[in-house]
């Protein structure tokens, strides 16, 4: 029996995939190169801009935004001030700004791709049937798997980090946009149609506004997922807090690892609460 099994030659799946990737990388190398260099330059300049803001001013700004976004409550504002001061105190400010840029770019790109995809899914059963299993597949993959194509296309650095984060963080925005639009009650859709709305009018005036809070919940998850990719992305050279965690891990420096890890958590809490409160306010 085992003899028989051994007689089947090894299927060349790995080779085929590698060929496809090679072909991809070769054919689009100029595109990838362009994105890599220009993307890196753009993100570096954003990071530099953020670093050039005096930290104390930055912290105050965040605190003020937190204060108003949470309905003039002091909780988040005070937490932001203390948390960010702690990060500054631990000499991790520059890393925080790098992480901020990474998360910002990854989230924005994921949203720009995700919302139209979600709309497409909600409008077309065919698209829904095709994209849904892909999303399922994407969500069951561990995040670092995406590092492989990222490195293949873009080499190492911050751009492949963003690329991997986008793929990892994309599904919730797509899913929630689809869900939000499909949830709009049939009567409201009929009302919009009965007045002679075009598809676009219906989408912009009725469906998206009503689906807004659901979509925002998806965006919130996307942001948090891209934040959770920060450590993994640092494995391929993306700078930021993640790199501190990673290097502490590699050198078994428990203390440094703890500080960097706590800083990430603080940042995550602020980002999460802020995006959530934007959603509540917009209801």
């Amino acid at each position, binding site marked *: 029996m085992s003899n028989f099994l051994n007689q089947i030659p090894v299927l060349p799946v790995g080779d085929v995939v590698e060929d496809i990737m090679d072909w991809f990388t070769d054919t689009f190398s100029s595109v990838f190169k362009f994105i890599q260099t220009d993307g890196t330059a753009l993100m570096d300049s954003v990071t530099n801009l953020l670093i050039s803001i005096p930290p104390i001013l930055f912290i105050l700004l965040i605190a003020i935004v937190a204060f108003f976004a949470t309905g003039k409550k002091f909780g988040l504002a005070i937490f932001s001030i203390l948390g960010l001061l702690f990060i500054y105190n631990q000499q991790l400010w520059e890393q925080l700004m790098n992480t901020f840029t990474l998360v910002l770019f990854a989230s924005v790109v994921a949203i720009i791709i995700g919302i139209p995809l979600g709309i497409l899914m909600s409008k077309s059963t065919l698209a829904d049937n095709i994209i849904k299993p892909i999303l399922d597949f994407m969500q069951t993959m561990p995040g670092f798997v995406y590092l492989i194509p990222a490195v293949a296309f873009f080499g190492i650095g911050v751009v492949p980090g963003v690329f991997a984060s986008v793929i990892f963080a994309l599904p919730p925005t797509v899913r929630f946009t689809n869900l939000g639009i499909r949830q709009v009650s049939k*009567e409201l859709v*009929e*009302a*919009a149609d009965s007045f*002679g*709305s075009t598809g676009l009018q219906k989408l912009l005036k009725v469906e998206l506004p*009503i689906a807004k809070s659901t979509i925002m919940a998806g965006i919130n998850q996307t942001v948090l997922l891209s934040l959770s990719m920060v450590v993994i992305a640092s494995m391929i050279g993306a700078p930021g807090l993640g790199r501190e965690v990673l290097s502490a891990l590699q050198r078994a420096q428990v203390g440094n690892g703890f500080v960097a890890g706590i800083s990430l958590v603080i940042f995550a809490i602020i980002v999460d609460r802020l995006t959530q409160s934007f959603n509540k306010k917009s209801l």
Partner: protein
Amino acid sequence: MEKLRVENVTKIFGKQSANAMKLVEKQMSKTEILQKTGATVGVYDASFTVNEGEIFVIMGLSGSGKSTLIRLLNRLIDPTGGEIFIDGEKITRLKKSQLQQIRREKMSMVFQNFGLFPHRTILENTQYGLEIRGIAKEEKRLKAEKALNNAGLLAYKDQYPHQLSGGMQQRVGLARALANDPEILLMDEAFSALDPLIRKEMQDELLELQANVQKTIIFITHDLNEALRIGDRIAIMKDGKIIQIGTGEEILTNPANAYIRTFLEDVDRSKVLTAEHVMVRAMTINVENDGPKVALQRMREEEISVLIAIDKQRQFKGYITATDALNAAQAGEKTVREIVQTDMPTVEPTTLIQDVLPIISDCPTPVAVVDDGKLRGILIRGVIIESLASATQEVEDHE
């Protein structure tokens, strides 16, 4: 003038609509077709016309296809077969953009659960149709405010739908439809979600509106009382088919079959029947010729104690009683002119029974039905009560 014409329209939901179509033609029932093909018959072979300025009511039990039929009219649902004409224009073959144009200009819809957009203020909701048409901002606002003002809701224009009561929300729904100044209003159970008092108020408002600005209204309800109250004509549906079309009176007095008769069960007949329907022939005496002896003779013959007094032209004069006639006969009077009493109440043939009831219950004599001074008949309490009870009787007899 004809506004809307529906010709042999059929809608079958599901993939096997062609197969299902054949089965309906073979008179197979809706449930059997569903079992055999998985397709649902929504509407089958509906044909009718609606005239301009008419309120055309479609009624039927739940699942009979009312909502489907009304949505075929503005093609929120596309028919499987048949044609629909509006102002003579065939709308079943229009392109998407032409269809949108028709929806914008000719017809608006009012929904059972109001269909107001929760993220828009009352004013923004009312403006929706105008906005879609690209009307200039100022004109749009003026028109919407006017529609809200007519609905008595201008003060609420900056509120959101959830801040208003159900009745108010539906007034907004109606105002939103009217702001567009459509020629046809499609109302799918528009008042069904409202409590009875508000509902009656809205019916009145609709009738008043209809008197002021003549719209063609297609109104769906499953409440026969509502249908009879507001409908010029009523179509009754069962299992996707229209089984009778007629005025309320035609349907009540001549129900096409047992199914329709079951509807009559929950109708309060007093709101539909008129004096004319329940009056009986009056025993009369001619005040110009007849004397008290003739009167007494006639009373004895018919076994009654009151005769209605009329003249040669059958003009109603009053009544005479047996006692007075006897006295007059003994006094040797030659005519009954002196003993005619005039305190008998009169109603017109078209007076509703519900309006007759309070009159007749306060009155010892019958009530005369008088048309333009002429006696048509009389109403007797016992007969009225009998006729009110007969609707239930008929249904029971049938079963």
